[in-house]
């Protein structure tokens, strides 16, 4: 198969643009990222700079790959990541457009690579259960219902790829944030910090420059792990309760040191 790849090229400090490359003799079972590998081999030998793009596990779980293929985050198909797109999903001779995520909070580093440290900072603001390593209570002393656990797992399945932000017309990170708040909030272990988690993660999300939710549900459609927007509703409720009904946050006031 032969394709024209129209790829966003951008170096630090220089405005980017779409550049076209021809690739030929690609077999249908080659993956899109392998096609990029091949293009990069050619570019290297020609003395041109290869296309920078993120990828690591190449089996759809690490969340590193992050392309927007012909206007769709990750590429054609549902429940998939960029690394799991194979050339058989395209028609021979087609032009394939490859763009980086577009979000003020996830700035382009180079070509198709974006900086997603904003997601780390959202987690830092409360996406955890404080439990220092050491002896802990017996897990079966705190039974968790099957359905509750599975629902929590539905949210925990998020791979942090940020396709939700890329797909959202508003560049919103609600699905990512809601998935973490939902995962921890559905478990009994997550209750003690539930209010402050909702308060701080939601505030952090805005601070990082993500957009707001207008219920387009594009995020859910693009999510490789099928995380549902119901978690956004859950997050909203948790947040409203934490802001309007919960006790004051007394952290800090107890420190003696």
């Amino acid at each position, binding site marked *: 198969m032969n394709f024209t790849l129209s790829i966003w090229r951008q170096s630090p400090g220089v405005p980017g643009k779409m550049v076209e490359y021809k690739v030929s003799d690609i077999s249908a079972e080659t993956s899109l990222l392998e096609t990029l590998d*091949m293009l990069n081999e050619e570019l290297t030998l020609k003395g041109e700079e290869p296309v920078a793009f993120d990828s690591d596990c190449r089996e759809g779980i690490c969340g590193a790959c992050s392309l927007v293929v012909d206007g769709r985050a990750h590429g054609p198909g549902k429940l998939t990541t960029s690394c799991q797109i194979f050339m058989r999903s395209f028609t021979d001779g087609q032009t394939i457009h490859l763009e980086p995520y577009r979000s003020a909070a996830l700035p382009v580093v*180079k070509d198709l690579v974006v900086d997603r440290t904003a997601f780390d900072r959202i987690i830092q603001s409360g996406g955890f259960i404080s439990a220092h390593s050491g002896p802990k209570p017996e897990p079966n002393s705190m039974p968790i219902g099957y359905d509750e656990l599975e629902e929590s797992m539905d949210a925990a*399945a998020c791979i942090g790829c940020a396709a939700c932000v890329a797909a959202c017309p508003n560049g919103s990170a609600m699905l990512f944030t809601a998935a973490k708040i939902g995962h921890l909030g559905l478990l009994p272990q997550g209750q003690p910090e539930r209010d402050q988690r909702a308060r701080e993660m939601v505030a952090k999300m805005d601070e990082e420059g993500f957009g707001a939710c207008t219920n387009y549900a594009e995020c859910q459609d693009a999510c490789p792990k099928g995380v549902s927007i119901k978690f956004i509703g859950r997050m909203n409720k948790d947040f409203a309760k934490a802001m309007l009904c919960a006790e004051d946050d007394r952290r800090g006031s107890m420190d003696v040191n």
Partner: protein
Amino acid sequence: MELNSKIPNVPIQEAWRTHLDSINLVGPKNRPKYDIIVVGSGLAGASAAASLGAMGYNVKLFCFQDSPRRAHSIAAQGGINASKNYRNDGDSTWRLFYDTQKGGDFRGREANVYRLAETSTEIIDQCVSQGVPLAREYGGNLANRSFGGVLVERTFYARGQTGQQLLLGAYQALEEQVAKGKVKQYPRTEMHDIVKIDGRCRGIVVRDLMTGEIQTHAADAVVLATGGYANVYHRSTNAVNCNVTAAWRAHKQGSVFANPCFVQIHPTCIPVHGDHQSKLTLMSESLRNDGRIWVPRKKGDSRKPAHIPEDERFYYLEERYPSFGNLVPRDVASRAAKKVCDDGYGLGETGFGVYLDFRDAIAKQGKAAIEAKYGNLFDMYKDITDDDPYETPFKIYPAPHYTMGGLWVDYNLMTNVQGLYAIGEANFSDHGANRLGASSLMQCLADGYFILPQTIGDYLRDIYQQKIDEDHPEFEKHADAVSAKIDSLMNIQGTRTPLSFQKELGEIMWQYCGMSRNATDLKKALELIPKLRKEFWSDVKVAGTKDSLNQSLERAGRVADFLEFAELMCKDALERDESCGCHLREEHIHEDGEAKRNDEKFSHVAAWEWMGEDADHQLHAEKLSHEALKPTTRSYK
């Protein structure tokens, strides 16, 4: 050089407690005076950094990925072992120790393995407390599944994403410490060297992958949690960026490398389809519970599998291993697949693939039952290959998966370089010559949450008040050396890409130091590798510039290290003139085709010391003790 494993001279059941009671500790007020560097953010690195930060140490965490959450621990599917005995089926610390030690073909360190088994239950408690959604039964208690090679149900899981969930638990704990200012994380930063001052490891040299800047970081101790080296084969189940660089550069600074030839080849992976393929995807081992493995009896049979009648199918595992059949351990299944393909029965154009057929299982149990058990795996396979395994059999072939070898460490997990620690897959670990399924997650978390945080104080107390910072001339010297190496890579501007060298090296390793090995092949590899390395250093072409994100340069540096490391791996494989676990020497096979160990000569850890660019490695053998468990022969007939 004397390798002292520091294992207390008491029965293994008492070793860990006795050891903890006798080592130095650092008090909570003093911990903030120490700086610790952790390299790698997988299960071991993230859990260690989070634990050390929570204890009060100042931690710097480095990873080459864009976020610590992406480390390849995330890809582990099956589960994590713990001897909770929730099924009431006779599990115990001793039994987990026994299974692990036997699975490793008695090439693990007894005291370490026992400690691992002891710690296993605490890991589950810890992870559940952190909110890791391990699967539950309807009644709300934790669920278990069974896994290969053992007689009890002790594997805990979170759907097919156990590694991901455990890693996210550790990552979240890590981010909590980042928020508290106890850990500072450096993503997209690759370690290039360790800095030794007065025989102690006092810091590292790194390259900021975004800007190309070479930085130095001083610390009181350095922990390497940088994973395994299966990508020496180019294509493996590892992530494409996994590499041996950190471990290798530490090795070249004096840290001895143990058992590099021990590599696990996983039997059920999707076969290679073409030259440009970048990675091999693992299909869970559990498929072998119901699938039947076969090849056509006629060589080069091009008929569709459904059209091949029963008597023309060669169910080679069932024929050769009538009692275990398709459920023989990983190493045995892998070698059998290789054999039929080498004999010319392999499938398709490449000839490297065998069928894993659910036809009979679907006929017997119904499609719905199979779908319920394996639906997600069938879908995953269909997505990748465009073949529907409900209609036509899976095609599978073994692929490099996990490396049991690694940096040598003592009972404190410290390498022979003072102040340099290695944890997780990066150390030579507790798995002997073969790792059992669902044991790698357990080992990483045992090291990171429970062992290292408690043992590191023993060393730190020792160096109290000998502060050294980045102004020390050694840092500049090492940084200059790293820069010079990068410059020389950039300046070659030859005619071949770094990837082409990695592919060629991978082919050499797969062919001559793969699933089964012999002296002739290994000697051949030992001729080819230095030649390829020479060619690399005169003909590689690195694109782009060194002062911005340059993935070509990153790969070149990693391939350069693989090209050196591969040679040591072959040397070790040649030196270990016995078969054990995953290491099969064709010269040492029982008549029934099983591995023949030589406990008299090789019941040791082979630890190799770097003697300089032009000198040969020196071998140090650490004798293994078999006081608790007498080695026996594994048989699966």
